[in-house]
């Protein structure tokens, strides 16, 4: 993260930004010029953050990556987040050529729209961006977001037969490993 | 946090220590350890040979039994010498190697068991022998057990002719000499590869299998330059008899085969061509020695040719599944093989038991020392008899130089081990078939012509 952020922003975005409409940032502007709708979210400490619809994700990332002027061609990380009322898939985009370009793209799936026993579904970017491959697997493994179109969506950090998604808020540990009374305890 | 509290007043023992020539102490310890161990080994072997060669026959004859029996006992001397020698020697060589590698890498090496780590490998051997002998499930138990035996046996019976050469054809050992000695040694040394394939196949492990197959490929490839270089030396010497080859090199290092078997001295004004051919022959022989060492390193699977047991690729290759006494036998045989190939190099290239400079610690010197000791022990006839029956000065000088040369070559092999990374298998094959074998064939022809022209 650079010491000189791309767009100046208040030190504390959560407090400073009321839930009203935020002004469209430069990247949002660029996307809307190319016919991709996006919604500005409170900045992630000085970095423009936008939300796109799941269906638009592939087009958005391809456009941001391949266009000459933007060239956000460095996918730093894909993170799955279990927020209070949504499942987020967060894409941190940097540029190899210009160190000052940064963007956070979020895809938010409302928890209400996810049926019971179903996983939230986000289109996978792995087919055109290999950097996302293991990060998406990790996100699937730990947060339980199904990346539709991923070539090999399989648990990566946990054992292949693990049950549940450990980084979810409602996750219960199957075995309390530190409890002596538990017969399956590791102690 | 404030500054005054944050600076902990630690003792000043951390940080950069000066790196001086502190290794001299380690080198001294290493030399001391080598001398102690060598005296132990050769004291034991010498004692055993004396017992079987002198004392027992004398007792037998003293009881009035026929002379055939005492003669039969004498025939056992080479065998006894080797049986006593090999285990102790392998123990020493492991320690020698570990300490030498520690020297090269600014470490101390094993220095805890016994005085200054002298007994480290003895302790290791005991531990290995006491371990449970495991045969993995699915392994072919018979072959699995047979493999270490077949691997070890040739290194015992293969080196017997060399004994005669290393002891200067002593009367107790001349029975071990063969007219085609080097041929026999080479034949014996090509057997172990069968054992490696057996071990790899019988282990029921894919790494072992790959290791065993690699061992076969490698041994076949490197046997050719190895054998051809020795054959060339035999051509130069005109003999297959190791004792004879060793005795031809008497008279200082210029007579050694590595420098063209004394042909450098034959340079004369009478035939000016010898000014070219004699140095050429010497260069050819030095190259042959290098070829022999390369082939030998590959034969006995040492770095940089340790592909059959490449640790970073194949875990441990053919001996992955071995433990306990079977592994100990593999280990023993590997180090014995190193000793054997060094002994071959000594006999074939470096003049066997001859002193490199005539007059320097040679037979005459040992004879004069014996004479002095004899005159000192004049008043005690029993001790004088003991000394004379125990020590033969000519053999002592021969063994002294042979052992010195052999361990120098072993040290050299350890130095290589401490310096080079490992080849890749295809590069290894290329190196043998595309470089070494053509080179050794050229050298063979060159030596064949040059020996006539000098």
């Amino acid at each position, binding site marked *: 993260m650079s010491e000189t952020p791309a767009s100046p922003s208040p030190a504390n975005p*959560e407090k400073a930004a009321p839930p009203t409409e935020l002004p469209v940032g430069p990247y949002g502007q660029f996307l809307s010029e190319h016919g991709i709708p996006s919604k500005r979210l409170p900045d992630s400490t000085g970095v423009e953050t936008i939300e796109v619809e799941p269906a638009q994700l592939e087009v958005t990332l391809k456009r941001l990556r391949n266009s000459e002027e933007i060239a956000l061609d460095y996918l730093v990380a894909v993170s799955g987040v279990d927020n209070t009322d949504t499942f987020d898939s967060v894409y941190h985009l940097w540029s190899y050529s210009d160190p*000052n370009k940064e963007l956070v793209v979020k895809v938010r799936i409302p928890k209400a729209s996810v049926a019971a026993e179903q996983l939230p579904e986000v289109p996978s970017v792995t087919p055109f961006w290999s950097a996302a491959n293991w990060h998406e697997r990790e996100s699937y493994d730990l947060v339980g977001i199904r990346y539709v179109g991923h070539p090999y969506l399989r648990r990566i950090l946990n*054992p292949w037969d693990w049950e549940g998604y450990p980084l979810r808020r409602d996750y219960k540990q199957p075995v309390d490993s530190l409890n002596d009374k538990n017969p399956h305890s590791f102690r | 946090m404030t*500054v005054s509290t944050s600076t902990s007043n630690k003792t*000043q023992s*951390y940080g950069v220590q000066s790196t001086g020539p502190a290794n001299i102490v380690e080198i001294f310890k290493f030399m001391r350890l080598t001398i102690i161990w060598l005296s132990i080994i050769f004291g034991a072997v010498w004692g055993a040979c004396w017992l079987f060669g002198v004392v027992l026959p004398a007792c037998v004859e003293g009881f009035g039994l026929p002379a055939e029996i005492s003669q039969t006992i004498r025939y056992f001397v080479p065998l006894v010498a080797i049986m006593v020698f090999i285990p102790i020697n392998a123990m020493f060589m492991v320690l020698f190697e570990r300490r030498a590698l520690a020297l090269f890498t600014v470490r101390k090496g094993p220095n805890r068991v016994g005085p200054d780590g002298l007994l480290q490998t003895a302790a290791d051997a005991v531990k290995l022998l006491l371990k449970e002998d495991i045969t993995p499930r699915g392994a072919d138990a018979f072959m699995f057990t047979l493999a270490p035996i077949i691997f070890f046996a040739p290194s015992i019976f293969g080196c017997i002719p060399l004994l005669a050469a290393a002891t200067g054809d002593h009367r107790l050992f001349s029975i071990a000499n063969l007219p085609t000695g080097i041929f026999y040694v080479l034949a014996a040394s090509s057997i172990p590869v069968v054992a490696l394939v057996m071990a790899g196949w019988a282990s029921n492990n894919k790494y072992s299998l790959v290791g065993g197959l690699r061992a076969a490929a490698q041994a076949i490839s490197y046997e050719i330059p190895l054998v051809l270089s020795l054959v060339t030396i035999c051509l130069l010497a005109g003999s297959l008899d190791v004792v004879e080859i060793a005795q031809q090199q008497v008279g200082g290092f210029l007579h050694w085969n590595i420098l063209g078997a004394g042909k450098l001295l034959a340079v004369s004004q009478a035939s000016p061509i010898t000014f070219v051919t004699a140095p050429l022959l010497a260069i050819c022989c030095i190259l042959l020695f290098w070829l022999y060492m390369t082939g030998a390193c590959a034969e006995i699977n040492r770095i940089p040719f340790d592909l059959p047991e490449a*640790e970073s690729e194949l*875990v441990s290759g053919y001996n992955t599944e071995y433990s306990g006494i079977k592994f100990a036998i593999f280990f023993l045989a590997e180090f014995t093989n190193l000793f054997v190939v060094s002994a071959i190099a000594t006999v074939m290239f470096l003049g066997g038991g001859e002193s490199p400079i005539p007059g320097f610690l040679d037979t005459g010197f040992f004879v004069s020392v014996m004479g002095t000791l004899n005159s000192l022990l004049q008043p005690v006839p029993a001790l004088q008899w003991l000394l004379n029956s125990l020590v033969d000065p000519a053999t002592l000088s021969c063994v002294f130089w042979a052992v010195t040369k052999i361990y120098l070559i072993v040290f050299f092999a350890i130095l290589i081990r401490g310096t080079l990374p490992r080849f890749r298998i295809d590069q290894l094959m290329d190196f043998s078939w595309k470089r070494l074998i053509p080179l050794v064939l050229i050298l063979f022809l060159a030596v064949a012509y040059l020996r006539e022209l000098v």
Partner: protein
Amino acid sequence: MAVNVGNDQLKTDEMIINMGPQHPATHGVLRLLLTLDGEMVRNVEPVIGHLHRAQEWQGQNRTWFQYQALIDRVDYLSGMFTSWALARAAEHIEGIKISPRAEYLRVMVSEMNRITSHLLWLGTYLIDLGAMFGFPFYPFREREKLLDLLEAVAGQRMMFNYIRIGGVQCNPPLGWFDKLKRFTEEFPDRVDEYEAIVTENPIFLKRTKGIGRLSKSVAMDYGVTGPTLRASGVNLDLRRTKPYSVYDQLKFEVPVLEGDGDTWARYTCRIREMRESNKIIKQCIEKIPGGTTEEIRKLGDEANKDENLKLMAKKQNSGLRVKAGEGFAAVESPRGTLGCYIISNGSDKAYRFKWRNPSFSNLSVLPELLVGHPIADIMAIFGSIDVILPDVDR
């Protein structure tokens, strides 16, 4: 095995070998599912997670103060960098400014840590290449010295917990700067020594030149970072391209090699980086505000009042809180971009941690590199991308 008579080729079956997790050369517990055709690798599937310690879960269930001490374990060879990434991300959210002296100390200790990490890599890489007993030990000689110095300043040899949210823990002890200076003076000679043994070694060149080529486009596609990326010709070093801390005030070069990065290029890149790190430490010793610890001691109480010399901008106790908000910060670790994504809700625990570990991304490119090489090259290539398994598995 069936001999195909019409086409005089021997038909062979493929063999599947499980390399690891218990294998002497997999740097811990990586498991590679290899499909071999003879000795050639046809397919690779890295199976990771054997060292998974749920670091992110731990972060969300421990207080900030507790987690600070835990995070060094993620990449045990460069603990300073994980601490630093966490501290930077939290400081970003908080908006804290760190005093110059603390920043310089951070740069110094982490560059020392970078050298130790590269030295260990050098030693183990040579072991991977089969040089089992020779030079692998030489790098460890220098590494010991640096670890002694790091121990003196942080109290621990590997799990430092020295860089904290808001600054650094303490000033180095007396005499530390002199010893470090002496080290920096002799270190270039030592690197020359390694190079003298290794760089021109014909077997080493044969094993590394042209092996495991990683083209620029593939590296960028997989998000490979660090020396592995720079050896492929991409100039991405956060210290230079996105200068953080005081790196913009220091003079150093970022070694970027042209052409498809083979294992030899990666080796060269790391060797050069060690020299550059050494230069950085040298400059820091000269430039650090307040000078050595002895000089700080002389200042006495004045040092406590000077804003430039204050080491800690935040109280270090169990009540440590970070403001609500989300932030991402990255540092250039010895293995590449080490990022930390934090979502805080202002309580004593973080809401979400996400670590962007360089080893994780670098390892994902491994199948691309290995297919088509013989098994002997697996370790030569795998070693050259310098992966630390705890860093992959977290």
